[in-house]
């Protein structure tokens, strides 16, 4: 994965994590670092676009609430967080985590923690899919005549 793709991955994992999960993740990495809040947690919206027929002309489906936050660590590294919902506390913690992750090696505790969260999220998705799969129709055809 490229550097950006790796970062996109952890941002996606953090967006799906709860505030408590991110709090626990950060706690593993030691005391919370000093940081400056460049954009205080702010709730706004993103207009969600669909496509007619799934693949055609773009249209506006409706908005979704989104909360964002940008912090800067003592060393100058900036961390961003953008996620659905209105949790300001989560946004700040996720932005700090994003900043720390950018300077951490792959074996670092935050990377490991993000990996564990990703696995947990994947397991939940798979369980939901298996429950849906239990409702999949098994057709059997009655052969008539010769």
């Amino acid at each position, binding site marked *: 994965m490229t550097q950006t793709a790796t970062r996109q991955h952890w941002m996606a994992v953090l967006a799906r994590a709860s505030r408590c999960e991110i709090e626990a993740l950060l706690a593993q990495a030691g005391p919370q670092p000093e940081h400056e809040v460049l954009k205080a947690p702010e709730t706004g*919206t*993103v207009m*969600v676009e*669909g*496509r007619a027929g799934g693949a055609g002309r*773009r249209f506006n489906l409706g908005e979704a*609430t989104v909360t964002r936050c940008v912090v800067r660590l003592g060393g100058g590294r900036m961390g961003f967080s953008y996620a659905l919902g209105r949790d300001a506390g989560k946004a700040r913690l996720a932005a700090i985590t994003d900043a720390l992750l950018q300077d951490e090696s792959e074996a670092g505790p935050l990377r490991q923690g993000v990996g564990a969260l990703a696995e947990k999220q994947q397991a939940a998705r798979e369980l*939901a899919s298996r*429950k849906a799969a239990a409702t999949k*129709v098994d057709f059997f055809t009655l052969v008539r005549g010769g």
Partner: protein
Amino acid sequence: MYVAVKGGEAAILATHDLVAEARRGDESVPEIAVAQIREQMGLACGRVMNEGSLYDPDLAALALKQAQGDAIEAAFLMRAYRTTLPRFGSSEPLDTAKMAIRRRVSATYKDLPGGQVLGPTYDYTHRLFDFALMDEAAPGEVQARPAAQPLDASMPRVPDILGAEGLMEEEAPPEGDPRPFDLTREPVSFPAERDVRLQAMARGDEGFLLGLGYSVQRGFGNSHPFVGEVRVGEVCVEFVPEELGFAVDLGEITLTECQMVNQFAGSKDVPPQFTRGYGLSFGHSERKAMSMSLVDRALKAREFGEAATYPAQQDEFVLYHSDNVEAAGFVEHLKLPHYVDFQGELELIRRIRRERQERQDKHADQANEALPEAAE
């Protein structure tokens, strides 16, 4: 005509207290929590998110609690709250082909790649009361049993299968893939383009669209629809913040998508083929998505050179009347004081009646005067 009239403040404040009491109901019954509404009234929350045009299940639940379950009032709360928020931008267009499927059925193909997945549907329930639900003390078994294997990671959208054979009207973005029109920012003009129609219907009243969709089926719209596919599940929302320059996955939202397939006899320029109607909505809201797709097809009448004879085919009629917050506002404003207006009408009616009476009296007098002469 509106004239500011002072007074009534105390009465109005008292209504706030009374409404709070009515909302709470019998205090010996435990108060309902917002999280309970979100988790246990999810379909109602979906409707409020659609008509409030804002995806936020917690807020939808709060709106329902505050509005005592009145869906339109709740949608109004969502719309009002939305106006207080800054907009960060527009998402990347959703890719429903990558939906994490919970339900996916087709009425056109029995055997389709990925299969028919019934999901959490009321379609096969008996409409008989489950009185066990009244006994909250005895929790039943509510864990669904999973299958051994998950569903296919991605499932093709059914119309795309017909599309591959060239039998289906093509859905491709217009030249340059333009940014869609936003009717919350700019005034709508008619005839309205497809992006405007779809946005208006996505936030439109479910009941209104259901009625229109039904009218199309019953012969007020020349339609022979099949459900090509209905799918329900979770889709990622991606957004590119200007300052980052790459797409950020914001999380997942639940969506319902309906692709309606319709016959089309063809025209001078287009060979006979299937045409489509499209519906997309927040949450699990099949009836909404299906109704939207029926009306979407009906509104394409102009594009196919069909006569737009029926209400569901007329964009101005559909778009101007589908928004229930606007409609409720205009209908319900009739409750507000129109004292001066009405006083004027009252004066007018009295005057007309007086003049009519005078005319009649005059005619009678003339007739009486004329009578003796006539007798001669």
